[in-house]
Protein backbone atom coordinates (compact mmCIF):
# COMPACT_ATOMS: atom_id res chain seq x y z
CA UNK A 1 0.00 0.00 0.00
CA UNK A 2 1.49 3.34 -1.03
CA UNK A 3 2.02 5.90 1.72
CA UNK A 4 -0.02 8.94 0.73
CA UNK A 5 -0.38 10.90 3.94
CA UNK A 6 2.28 13.37 2.85
CA UNK A 7 1.62 16.51 0.84
CA UNK A 8 -0.28 15.54 -2.33
CA UNK A 9 1.75 18.05 -4.33
CA UNK A 10 4.99 16.37 -3.25
CA UNK A 11 3.59 13.00 -4.27
CA UNK A 12 2.57 14.31 -7.68
CA UNK A 13 6.02 15.86 -8.16
CA UNK A 14 7.83 12.70 -7.10
CA UNK A 15 5.87 10.20 -9.18
CA UNK A 16 5.69 12.38 -12.31
CA UNK A 17 7.60 11.26 -15.40
CA UNK A 18 9.41 14.54 -15.94
CA UNK A 19 11.15 13.33 -19.10
CA UNK A 20 7.77 12.67 -20.68
CA UNK A 21 6.35 15.97 -19.46
CA UNK A 22 9.26 18.02 -20.82
CA UNK A 23 8.95 16.30 -24.20
CA UNK A 24 5.39 17.57 -24.70
CA UNK A 25 4.25 20.68 -26.61
CA UNK A 26 4.13 23.80 -24.40
CA UNK A 27 0.38 23.84 -23.81
CA UNK A 28 0.24 20.23 -22.60
CA UNK A 29 3.49 20.55 -20.66
CA UNK A 30 2.37 23.66 -18.77
CA UNK A 31 -1.05 22.14 -18.08
CA UNK A 32 0.55 19.10 -16.46
CA UNK A 33 2.84 21.33 -14.40
CA UNK A 34 -0.18 23.34 -13.27
CA UNK A 35 -1.93 20.09 -12.29
CA UNK A 36 1.10 18.90 -10.34
CA UNK A 37 1.14 22.17 -8.40
CA UNK A 38 -2.59 22.50 -7.72
CA UNK A 39 -4.32 19.14 -8.27
CA UNK A 40 -7.04 21.04 -10.13
CA UNK A 41 -7.89 18.86 -13.11
CA UNK A 42 -10.66 21.10 -14.43
CA UNK A 43 -8.50 24.17 -14.88
CA UNK A 44 -5.55 22.05 -16.06
CA UNK A 45 -7.71 20.53 -18.80
CA UNK A 46 -8.66 24.04 -19.93
CA UNK A 47 -5.02 25.09 -20.11
CA UNK A 48 -4.32 21.99 -22.19
CA UNK A 49 -7.29 22.58 -24.45
CA UNK A 50 -8.61 19.10 -23.66
CA UNK A 51 -11.71 17.67 -22.06
CA UNK A 52 -11.27 16.45 -18.49
CA UNK A 53 -11.29 12.82 -19.63
CA UNK A 54 -8.62 13.50 -22.25
CA UNK A 55 -6.52 15.34 -19.68
CA UNK A 56 -6.94 12.46 -17.24
CA UNK A 57 -5.51 10.07 -19.84
CA UNK A 58 -2.55 12.43 -20.29
CA UNK A 59 -2.10 12.55 -16.50
CA UNK A 60 -1.92 8.76 -16.36
CA UNK A 61 0.59 8.65 -19.23
CA UNK A 62 2.70 11.15 -17.28
CA UNK A 63 2.45 8.85 -14.23
CA UNK A 64 1.02 11.60 -12.04
CA UNK A 65 -1.19 10.21 -9.26
CA UNK A 66 -4.56 11.74 -8.51
CA UNK A 67 -4.32 12.08 -4.74
CA UNK A 68 -7.62 12.69 -2.98
Amino acid at each position, binding site marked *: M*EAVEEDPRELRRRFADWGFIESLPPRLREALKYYIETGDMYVASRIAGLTIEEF*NELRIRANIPNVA
Partner: protein
Amino acid sequence: MSRSFAIADTCFLIDWARYRGRDLLFKLYIVYVPESVLREVKSESTIAWIASKLASGDLALFTETESEVEEARSIMERSRRMPNTPAVDLPEAICIVAGRRRGYVVLTENRGALKFVELAEDYSGVIIHRSLEILLQLQLKRYLEPDCGDPALRFREYEEDTKHLFPRKDLLNAVATIRRELCGET
Protein backbone atom coordinates in the same frame (compact mmCIF):
# COMPACT_ATOMS: atom_id res chain seq x y z
CA MET B 1 -33.33 -1.93 -1.15
CA SER B 2 -34.20 1.56 -2.38
CA ARG B 3 -31.28 3.42 -3.92
CA SER B 4 -30.37 7.02 -3.14
CA PHE B 5 -30.22 9.70 -5.78
CA ALA B 6 -26.71 11.00 -6.32
CA ILE B 7 -24.99 13.41 -8.67
CA ALA B 8 -21.45 12.87 -9.94
CA ASP B 9 -18.79 15.29 -11.04
CA THR B 10 -16.51 14.61 -14.00
CA CYS B 11 -13.41 13.30 -12.25
CA PHE B 12 -15.47 10.89 -10.18
CA LEU B 13 -17.32 9.51 -13.19
CA ILE B 14 -14.28 9.03 -15.42
CA ASP B 15 -12.45 7.29 -12.57
CA TRP B 16 -15.37 4.88 -12.10
CA ALA B 17 -15.52 4.29 -15.84
CA ARG B 18 -11.98 2.85 -15.58
CA TYR B 19 -12.68 0.71 -12.50
CA ARG B 20 -13.22 -3.04 -12.98
CA GLY B 21 -16.22 -2.97 -10.62
CA ARG B 22 -17.78 0.16 -12.08
CA ASP B 23 -21.34 -1.16 -12.24
CA LEU B 24 -21.33 -1.78 -8.49
CA LEU B 25 -21.88 1.96 -8.09
CA PHE B 26 -25.49 1.42 -9.08
CA LYS B 27 -26.10 -0.96 -6.20
CA LEU B 28 -26.11 2.13 -4.01
CA TYR B 29 -27.26 5.02 -6.20
CA ILE B 30 -29.16 6.23 -9.20
CA VAL B 31 -26.63 8.75 -10.48
CA TYR B 32 -27.45 12.03 -12.17
CA VAL B 33 -24.90 13.28 -14.68
CA PRO B 34 -24.90 17.03 -15.35
CA GLU B 35 -24.80 17.97 -19.02
CA SER B 36 -21.60 19.89 -18.30
CA VAL B 37 -20.03 16.62 -17.11
CA LEU B 38 -21.23 14.68 -20.13
CA ARG B 39 -19.47 17.16 -22.40
CA GLU B 40 -16.14 16.27 -20.76
CA VAL B 41 -16.28 12.63 -21.83
CA LYS B 42 -14.68 11.70 -25.14
CA SER B 43 -13.42 8.10 -25.13
CA GLU B 44 -15.51 5.47 -26.87
CA SER B 45 -15.43 3.07 -23.91
CA THR B 46 -16.60 5.68 -21.40
CA ILE B 47 -19.30 7.01 -23.70
CA ALA B 48 -20.52 3.48 -24.37
CA TRP B 49 -20.71 2.76 -20.65
CA ILE B 50 -22.55 6.00 -19.91
CA ALA B 51 -24.98 5.53 -22.78
CA SER B 52 -25.82 1.98 -21.70
CA LYS B 53 -26.38 3.10 -18.12
CA LEU B 54 -28.53 6.03 -19.22
CA ALA B 55 -30.59 3.50 -21.19
CA SER B 56 -30.94 1.17 -18.21
CA GLY B 57 -31.89 4.01 -15.88
CA ASP B 58 -28.90 3.64 -13.58
CA LEU B 59 -27.67 7.02 -14.80
CA ALA B 60 -29.91 10.00 -15.52
CA LEU B 61 -29.22 13.27 -17.26
CA PHE B 62 -29.21 16.40 -15.12
CA THR B 63 -29.87 19.58 -17.06
CA GLU B 64 -28.69 22.59 -15.12
CA THR B 65 -31.07 25.56 -14.93
CA GLU B 66 -29.85 29.16 -15.12
CA SER B 67 -30.70 29.57 -11.47
CA GLU B 68 -28.57 26.56 -10.52
CA VAL B 69 -25.63 27.80 -12.57
CA GLU B 70 -25.96 31.20 -10.91
CA GLU B 71 -25.87 29.62 -7.45
CA ALA B 72 -22.91 27.49 -8.53
CA ARG B 73 -21.02 30.63 -9.57
CA SER B 74 -21.67 32.06 -6.14
CA ILE B 75 -20.18 28.91 -4.57
CA MET B 76 -17.10 29.30 -6.77
CA GLU B 77 -16.64 32.89 -5.61
CA ARG B 78 -17.17 32.07 -1.94
CA SER B 79 -14.69 29.18 -2.08
CA ARG B 80 -12.02 31.53 -3.44
CA ARG B 81 -12.45 33.78 -0.42
CA MET B 82 -12.04 30.93 2.07
CA PRO B 83 -8.49 30.74 3.41
CA ASN B 84 -6.56 27.50 2.83
CA THR B 85 -9.39 26.05 0.78
CA PRO B 86 -8.93 24.75 -2.76
CA ALA B 87 -11.17 26.62 -5.18
CA VAL B 88 -14.39 24.91 -6.26
CA ASP B 89 -14.81 24.79 -10.03
CA LEU B 90 -18.12 24.95 -11.88
CA PRO B 91 -18.77 21.18 -12.32
CA GLU B 92 -18.37 20.44 -8.62
CA ALA B 93 -20.31 23.58 -7.70
CA ILE B 94 -23.26 22.41 -9.83
CA CYS B 95 -23.23 19.13 -7.91
CA ILE B 96 -23.19 20.94 -4.56
CA VAL B 97 -26.19 23.01 -5.64
CA ALA B 98 -28.07 19.83 -6.55
CA GLY B 99 -27.04 18.38 -3.21
CA ARG B 100 -28.56 21.33 -1.37
CA ARG B 101 -31.67 21.84 -3.47
CA ARG B 102 -32.57 18.25 -4.33
CA GLY B 103 -30.96 16.30 -1.49
CA TYR B 104 -28.80 14.30 -3.88
CA VAL B 105 -25.63 12.71 -2.51
CA VAL B 106 -22.67 14.45 -4.15
CA LEU B 107 -20.12 12.04 -5.61
CA THR B 108 -16.77 13.77 -5.88
CA GLU B 109 -13.13 13.51 -4.83
CA ASN B 110 -12.67 17.25 -5.03
CA ARG B 111 -11.02 18.59 -1.89
CA GLY B 112 -12.42 22.06 -2.49
CA ALA B 113 -15.96 20.71 -2.51
CA LEU B 114 -15.38 18.74 0.69
CA LYS B 115 -13.92 21.76 2.44
CA PHE B 116 -16.60 24.11 1.18
CA VAL B 117 -19.53 22.13 2.60
CA GLU B 118 -17.57 21.76 5.83
CA LEU B 119 -17.11 25.52 6.18
CA ALA B 120 -20.26 27.00 4.60
CA GLU B 121 -23.06 26.68 7.14
CA ASP B 122 -25.81 27.02 4.55
CA TYR B 123 -24.42 23.96 2.76
CA SER B 124 -23.69 21.87 5.85
CA GLY B 125 -26.53 19.49 5.04
CA VAL B 126 -24.96 18.44 1.74
CA ILE B 127 -23.68 14.86 1.87
CA ILE B 128 -20.51 14.07 -0.08
CA HIS B 129 -19.33 10.53 -0.73
CA ARG B 130 -15.88 9.79 -2.09
CA SER B 131 -14.89 6.54 -3.79
CA LEU B 132 -13.20 5.36 -0.61
CA GLU B 133 -16.47 5.53 1.34
CA ILE B 134 -18.38 3.91 -1.51
CA LEU B 135 -15.96 0.98 -1.73
CA LEU B 136 -16.27 0.58 2.02
CA GLN B 137 -20.08 0.63 1.89
CA LEU B 138 -20.12 -1.86 -0.99
CA GLN B 139 -18.12 -4.29 1.13
CA LEU B 140 -20.12 -3.69 4.30
CA LYS B 141 -23.31 -4.42 2.33
CA ARG B 142 -21.62 -7.44 0.68
CA TYR B 143 -22.09 -6.21 -2.85
CA LEU B 144 -18.29 -6.41 -3.09
CA GLU B 145 -16.78 -9.41 -1.38
CA PRO B 146 -14.00 -8.43 1.04
CA ASP B 147 -10.77 -10.40 1.17
CA CYS B 148 -10.02 -10.96 4.85
CA GLY B 149 -6.57 -12.27 3.95
CA ASP B 150 -5.85 -8.91 2.36
CA PRO B 151 -8.48 -6.39 3.55
CA ALA B 152 -6.89 -3.58 1.54
CA LEU B 153 -7.26 -5.51 -1.73
CA ARG B 154 -10.53 -3.98 -2.95
CA PHE B 155 -9.25 -0.45 -2.36
CA ARG B 156 -5.94 -1.26 -4.04
CA GLU B 157 -7.74 -2.61 -7.12
CA TYR B 158 -9.50 0.72 -7.49
CA GLU B 159 -6.22 2.60 -7.08
CA GLU B 160 -4.57 0.40 -9.73
CA ASP B 161 -7.36 0.81 -12.25
CA THR B 162 -7.72 4.58 -11.86
CA LYS B 163 -4.22 5.70 -10.76
CA HIS B 164 -5.99 7.43 -7.91
CA LEU B 165 -4.31 7.27 -4.51
CA PHE B 166 -6.44 7.46 -1.38
CA PRO B 167 -5.16 9.45 1.59
CA ARG B 168 -3.24 6.96 3.72
CA LYS B 169 -4.98 7.78 7.00
CA ASP B 170 -8.47 7.46 5.53
CA LEU B 171 -7.51 4.24 3.79
CA LEU B 172 -6.14 2.70 6.98
CA ASN B 173 -9.35 3.62 8.80
CA ALA B 174 -11.43 1.97 6.08
CA VAL B 175 -9.29 -1.18 6.16
CA ALA B 176 -9.62 -1.28 9.96
CA THR B 177 -13.42 -1.13 9.57
CA ILE B 178 -13.32 -4.07 7.15
CA ARG B 179 -11.18 -6.06 9.60
CA ARG B 180 -13.47 -5.26 12.52
CA GLU B 181 -16.90 -5.52 10.90
CA LEU B 182 -16.39 -8.24 8.32
CA CYS B 183 -13.34 -10.27 9.29
CA GLY B 184 -14.01 -10.75 12.99
CA GLU B 185 -10.88 -9.01 14.17
CA THR B 186 -10.96 -6.91 17.31
